[in-house]
């Protein structure tokens, strides 16, 4: 519960200082994770599904929500290739499912991914296949955004891969 509520507090603070003001100014806000992360993660930790949705009912509904979907094995391989140690909470070690961080990560994040799959339909998330190359993903993302958001010609012409 405290894990969920502290994140909600942080989110409320960012919403009111960092998200709503630029929206009022007509800017585009790119949010790296949103309330959906809390829905998936907190429910996996055992918080009531409906409660956490109502908790976040003060959040602004995004114009577009992208979900980068990746199988658990790819996710583990990528993380292990880049850094030695998985983070304690990211691996769900607080739940005590396994004393092995990698095993715990697999179990916990596997369930988180299952929750995300429910969210896709419930909230109309746009799924991006995150197994693909970064260039392909970015091209797809730009296409999706171009369809949904009014962007001027000049901004669109910048389609160089990252």
């Amino acid at each position, binding site marked *: *519960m*405290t894990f969920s509520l*502290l994140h909600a*507090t942080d989110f409320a603070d960012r919403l009111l200082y960092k998200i709503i003001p630029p929206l009022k100014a007509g800017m585009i806000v790119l949010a790296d994770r949103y309330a959906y992360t809390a829905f998936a993660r907190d429910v996996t930790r055992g918080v*009531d599904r409906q*409660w956490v949705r109502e908790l976040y009912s003060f959040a602004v509904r995004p114009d577009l929500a992208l979900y980068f979907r990746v199988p658990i094995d790819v996710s583990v391989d990528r993380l292990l290739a880049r850094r030695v140690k998985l983070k304690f909470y990211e691996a769900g070690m607080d739940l005590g499912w396994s004393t092995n961080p990698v095993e715990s990560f697999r179990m916990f994040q596997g369930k988180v991914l299952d929750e995300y799959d429910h969210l896709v339909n419930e909230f109309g998330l746009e799924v991006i296949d995150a197994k693909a190359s970064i260039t392909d993903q970015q091209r797809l993302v730009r296409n999706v955004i171009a369809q949904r958001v009014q962007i001027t010609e000049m901004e669109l012409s910048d389609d160089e891969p990252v």
Partner: protein
Amino acid sequence: MTSPSEPQQAPDSGADDGGANGGGLTGRYYGRGIPYLPLESYPGKLIAIEGTDGVGRSTQIQLLREWLEVRGYGVIETGWTRSMLMQPTIELAKSSNTLNKLTFVLLYATDFADRLEKEIIPALKAGFVVLSDRYIFTALARAGVRGVDRQWLRNLYGFAIAPHMVFYLNVDVKTLIGRVLASRGMDFWESGMDLKHGDDIYDSFRAYQNKLLREYSSMADEFHFKVVDARRPVDRIQDELRKNVAAFLESAGRPADRPADTLALQPR
């Protein structure tokens, strides 16, 4: 078959309803609760003492605690912002000027959740009497006055356990002002200065506390408050509290009704 004047029925149903003297609310969550902490029939008792700032809660709780301990009950106290996790954070946040009504509410809810999981529920499991100096109603009243959606608040605190008894120490603003000025003076938050009613702390205190008292009163029926007139002398109030608590603990069942390991609650 069922004769309406069946005398045998009365004692049986009376025994089943042993806990109903506490308002029939015992041992349940107000809302959706905490799925990973299902409430079983814990032997402990949760008693909340509610009321606005300076109404005399801590004095009454101290007296109640001594009385209960002399009678052989294990007692634990809990109160707002006393959680190990949140106290430093809340102090820090209050001293900066970045808190808004939403983050304020959520920080307090986190504090409450921490105390519920780490103090209140374990104490109830172990058979203690938990005296709560304020409960969720203070949070609901303060946030309600600040314009936070009341339905959202009730859902937020849906993980709270309904206390066995809620005493509401009721006072009028005039009496309250006299007491607060005679003791420690008016402080920024208790005067609702964040609501910017004006620069005058006296006017702000009166306006803010008036609203708070109305907010508390509006919850009295919804949450089954036992309203106690707190304008009377300390002893008279304490007598009333003890009488009610004694009657409740009496009705809550004899030691024989409980598992053998719950010694803390057995009256001597």
